[in-house]
């Protein structure tokens, strides 16, 4: 983590160091210069003064010896040539003032000057000595004649001019110092900028990348070390952006998913949830995060496998409870998040399938209705033929009754005639009864009925009776194998009859309009199962339609001739009986094969009651 304002502290320090160093160096140079200059000027004045004093002392020796103060004064007055000398005094060998010189209006008493103690300091062979205070320089020199000290001379020079000059120097130096400092400051700024600006850029870019923006780059046109650093940094970011999906991108995907995405920590608490999850469940993200997963599960699912995330990759359906207590159906798929060997948690993707479930229930209801109406429709197809089949026997019976009456009227009703007529009536009634029985078979709603053990022969005869008429009237030959008397099957009779009738009706429709019109029902036993083949002479079914024909609402018949449910319902019924209904391949004629186990024991999936099993 990068703290606070690193660039600023580096910057401040850089400026401080640069400024401190340069100002200190300049200051020391200036101070040394001024000190040296003051020293040099003092030395110069002192040397001049010494020379002057030596000359004056030499010239004053004679007046002093000859006791001629006038000449001494004249000698001293020559000192006026040097503007620095403000005062001079000549003493005799006893330390008594012999002659003096004072320059300008400022009368300076010798007693107050630095040479005031002249008598006391007048040694016999005292050397030339100098004394100075801030404003004046005093020099004392003995007056010597023939190696004997005959007196002393002092000169006082005014240092004012030197001080003024030094002050001027100092001012100039200060100005130069200020200007230099300013230049140094500019240089310092430039230097810190050249160092800390790239650092600041690098810092900002690193922060951008840290927050997921992999587009951040640093200008890398410099030739120096920073240029190299920037280039390496940019290369690093390039390779990072190639190999890593940016955080922003992932966040965006996560947020814009329509499905709920919930990340669960290993302890079962919700670690994060996307917007869809919040919206569907009615919680805010802050509320969901940290909540145990089982809180949103339907109460009866809170124990066992449902409460904890399930196995990897599994898709399952669950019921979630929203904040307001509504229950929603969800389809969940989940994955375990691993970081090396460590389990990081689970990712759940949950889809709200409440509406789909509702639709499915609705469709199931509608399918049941369709099955019913389809059954009625196939009944309706037969109704016309059945009416004919019933009305004809009735016409015969009525005719026979009329015949009896007529014969009786004419007295011709012999025993033989009665027997013959009665036989005819009996046979006709049997015929009608069979048809009515077939009808009754189909009129029952036995979707939920139990299975009954029934003779297959009976089912087939009853069913065939219903369509035999139709075949006969359209000159379609119907051949049915003799089914052995003892063959029995445990089944829902009406449903199996419906399947047979459907197949026979389909076969009948398929052969109409062709020269050779026949339908054959072939019976055999295979592995203890009943196998029926319904074969027709109609055109082959294109291979592309082999699967489609069993799908609901697929029909090759014209509009109004069928809804396309017959085969899908038949398949569903047969499968609910644990059998199969298929289109037999590699047969010379169109052949549908029904395989049915004889008993419930040999049956799988007999619990299924929805006849549209083929739809799924």
């Amino acid at each position, binding site marked *: 983590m990068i703290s606070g304002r690193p660039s600023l502290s580096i910057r401040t320090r850089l400026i401080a160091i640069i400024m401190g160093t340069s100002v200190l160096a300049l200051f020391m140079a200036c101070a040394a210069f001024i000190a040296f200059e003051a020293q040099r000027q003092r030395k110069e004045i002192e040397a001049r003064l010494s020379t002057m004093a030596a000359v004056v002392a030499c010239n004053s020796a004679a007046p002093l010896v000859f006791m001629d103060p006038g000449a001494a004064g004249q000698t001293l007055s020559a000192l006026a040539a040097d503007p620095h000398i403000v005062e001079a005094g000549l003493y005799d060998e006893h330390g008594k003032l012999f002659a003096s010189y004072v320059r300008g209006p400022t009368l300076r008493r010798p007693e107050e000057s630095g040479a005031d103690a002249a008598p006391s300091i007048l040694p016999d062979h005292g050397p030339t000595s100098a004394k100075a205070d801030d404003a004046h320089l005093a020099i004392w020199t003995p007056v010597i004649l023939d190696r004997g000290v005959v007196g002393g001379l002092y000169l006082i020079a005014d240092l004012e001019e030197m001080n003024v000059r030094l002050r001027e120097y100092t001012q100039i130096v200060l100005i130069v110092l200020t200007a230099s400092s300013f230049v140094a400051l500019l240089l310092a700024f430039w230097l810190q900028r050249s160092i800390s600006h790239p650092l600041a850029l690098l810092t900002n870019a690193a922060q951008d990348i840290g927050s997921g923006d992999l587009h951040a780059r640093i200008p890398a046109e410099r030739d120096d070390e920073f240029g190299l650093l920037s280039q390496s940094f940019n290369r690093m970011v390039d390779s990072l952006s190639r190999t890593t999906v940016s955080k922003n991108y992932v966040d965006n995907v996560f947020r814009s998913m329509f499905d709920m995405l919930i990340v669960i920590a290993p302890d079962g608490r919700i670690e994060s949830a996307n917007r869809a999850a919040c919206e569907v469940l009615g919680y805010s993200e802050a509320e969901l995060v940290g909540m145990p997963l089982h809180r949103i599960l339907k109460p009866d699912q809170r124990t066992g496998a449902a409460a904890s995330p399930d196995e990897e990759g599994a898709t399952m359906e669950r019921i979630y409870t929203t904040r307001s207590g509504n229950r929603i159906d969800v389809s969940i798929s989940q994955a375990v998040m691993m970081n090396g060997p460590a389990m990081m948690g689970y990712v759940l993707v949950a889809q709200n399938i409440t509406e789909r479930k509702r639709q499915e229930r609705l469709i199931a209801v509608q399918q049941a209705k369709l099955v019913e109406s389809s059954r009625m429709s196939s009944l309706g197809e037969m109704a*016309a033929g059945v*009416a*004919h*089949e*019933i*009305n*004809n026997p*009735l*016409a*015969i*019976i*009525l*005719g*026979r009754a*009329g*015949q009896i009456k*007529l014969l009786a009227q*004419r007295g011709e009703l012999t025993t033989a005639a009665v027997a013959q007529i009665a036989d*005819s009536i009996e046979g*006709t009634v049997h015929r009608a009864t069979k048809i009515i029985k077939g009808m009754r078979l189909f009129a029952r709603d036995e979707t939920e009925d139990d299975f009954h053990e029934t003779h297959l022969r009976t089912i087939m005869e009853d069913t065939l009776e219903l369509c035999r008429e139709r075949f*006969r*009237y359209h*000159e379609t030959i119907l051949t049915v194998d003799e089914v052995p008397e003892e063959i029995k099957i445990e089944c829902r009779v009406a449903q199996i009859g419906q399947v047979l009738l459907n197949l026979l009706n389909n076969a009948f429709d398929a052969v109409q309009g062709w020269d050779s019109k026949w339908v054959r029902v072939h019976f055999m036993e295979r592995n203890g199962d009943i196998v029926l083949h319904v074969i027709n002479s109609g055109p082959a079914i294109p291979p592309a339609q082999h699967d489609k024909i069993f799908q609901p609402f697929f029909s090759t018949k014209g509009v109004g001739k069928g809804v396309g449910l017959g085969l899908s319902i038949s398949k569903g019924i047969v499968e609910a009986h644990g059998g199969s209904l298929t289109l037999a391949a590699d047969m010379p004629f169109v052949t549908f094969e029904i395989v049915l186990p004889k008993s419930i024991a040999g049956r799988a999936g007999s619990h299924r009651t929805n006849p549209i099993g083929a739809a799924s």
Partner: protein
Amino acid sequence: MRTVEAPGSANGKRILIVDDEVDICEILQLHFELQGWSVKTANSGREARMLAALDSFDVILTDLRMPDGNGGEFIEQLKSLSKPRPDIYIMTGFNDGVLDESTLSGVRHVFQKPFSFETLVETMNAERNGS
């Protein structure tokens, strides 16, 4: 097929009865012959077409649906014959409207099975007297 000349109101009039139900043909033949009709029966459309082409009839009573085709076609064929047109009656076990209007236009009456012979005769007499 037998032809019996008998005394009765029909006085040798000729009728063709067409039905694939042999029993029905037999019963109707008995009744009509006792009333003095000359009766011929056919049990298929093909047989009926043959008889109608060979012979001429005063009345034809035919079933509508037969194994070898629609009775309607037979009726249409009868109408196209150049001979004096017979009175055409239909008997049918169906109670839905199988016949179209044009077929019915030349038909005297449609009898719904089952019917009694008395009803048949009364209706036919009424039709004949009415025309």
